[in-house]
């Protein structure tokens, strides 16, 4: 098999152009899927027989919780690649994933609190699932803070990669906490073996919401990786070309208006 395309994609200017072409399609697909998911979740899906309309929080809670774990794995894998192969693109992907992952971890926690109050009677309990998800948020914030604390980009990436990899131990703890400990949190609805514990008209918007959220995260991470590449590669010819193109666009816009 010919792997040259892979090596070419690893070079900053090639990846920048690749992201520039791919990102708009990801954004449009995410918007369509999320519009269907929210309409389906709020309007089309029937109320749950036990939780009534309160169950609709699932349509924002589960996708946020799912990407909060997936993006952490992505961040740690990118960190490992950056440590082992000193790959600049992997360093940029790692640091680009952190704010996106942190925002969806916060969303999972906030929507969980808003779901917990009417169902459990409390916004917060120091339960294994909730506590380990809070630790996940602190790990993301730790990576962001650590990155900001270094002047040198290479040293920053190495420190962040180490923290991200060590923190990976928390990911299975979050995922299996509802099985390992006696948790107030309900078990998995869809991410389990056998039949999903949800009817089809409730499940379809949920799957669309999951896919849409993953695509939006891909969009945000591609765009943020582009930003990191522009900063890391400033002064190079391809960044100068991007600056010239951006200036040209602005002048062109001024003429039209």
């Amino acid at each position, binding site marked *: 098999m010919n792997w040259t395309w892979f090596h070419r994609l690893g070079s900053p200017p090639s990846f920048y152009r690749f992201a520039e072409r791919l990102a708009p399609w990801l954004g449009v697909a995410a918007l369509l899927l999320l519009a269907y998911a929210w309409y389906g979740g709020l309007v089309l899906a029937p109320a749950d027989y036990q939780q009534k309309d309160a169950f609709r929080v699932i349509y924002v809670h589960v996708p946020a919780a799912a990407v909060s774990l997936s993006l952490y794995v992505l961040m740690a894998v990118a960190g490992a690649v950056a440590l082992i192969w000193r790959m600049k693109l992997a360093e940029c992907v790692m640091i680009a994933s952190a704010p996106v992952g942190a925002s969806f971890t916060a*969303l999972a926690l906030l929507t969980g609190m808003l779901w917990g109050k009417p169902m459990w009677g409390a916004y917060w309990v120091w339960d294994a699932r909730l506590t380990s998800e809070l630790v996940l948020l602190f790990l993301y914030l730790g990576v962001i803070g650590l990155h900001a604390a270094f002047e040198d980009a290479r040293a920053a990436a190495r420190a962040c990669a180490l923290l991200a990899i060590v923190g990976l131990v928390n990911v299975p703890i979050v995922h299996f906490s509802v099985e390992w400990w006696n948790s107030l949190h309900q078990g998995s609805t869809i991410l389990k073996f056998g039949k999903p514990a949800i009817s089809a008209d409730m499940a379809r918007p949920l799957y669309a919401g999951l896919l849409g959220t993953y695509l*939006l995260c891909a969009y945000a991470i591609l765009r943020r990786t582009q930003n990191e590449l522009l900063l890391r590669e400033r002064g190079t010819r391809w960044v100068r070309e991007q600056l010239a193109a951006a200036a040209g666009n602005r002048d062109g816009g001024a003429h039209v208006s």
Partner: protein
Amino acid sequence: MSPEFWSMGGYAPYVWGSFGVAAAIYLWNAIAPRLRRRAILDSLADDE
């Protein structure tokens, strides 16, 4: 939309609160990287 839809069977603050927070975070993820790119391009253009 009917009043029953907006009241969400009495769970309105929790359901609409969740979707409101979610809308803010989805929008931030869609918009923030673009604003940052403009800021980076402007600052790099000033350095040139």
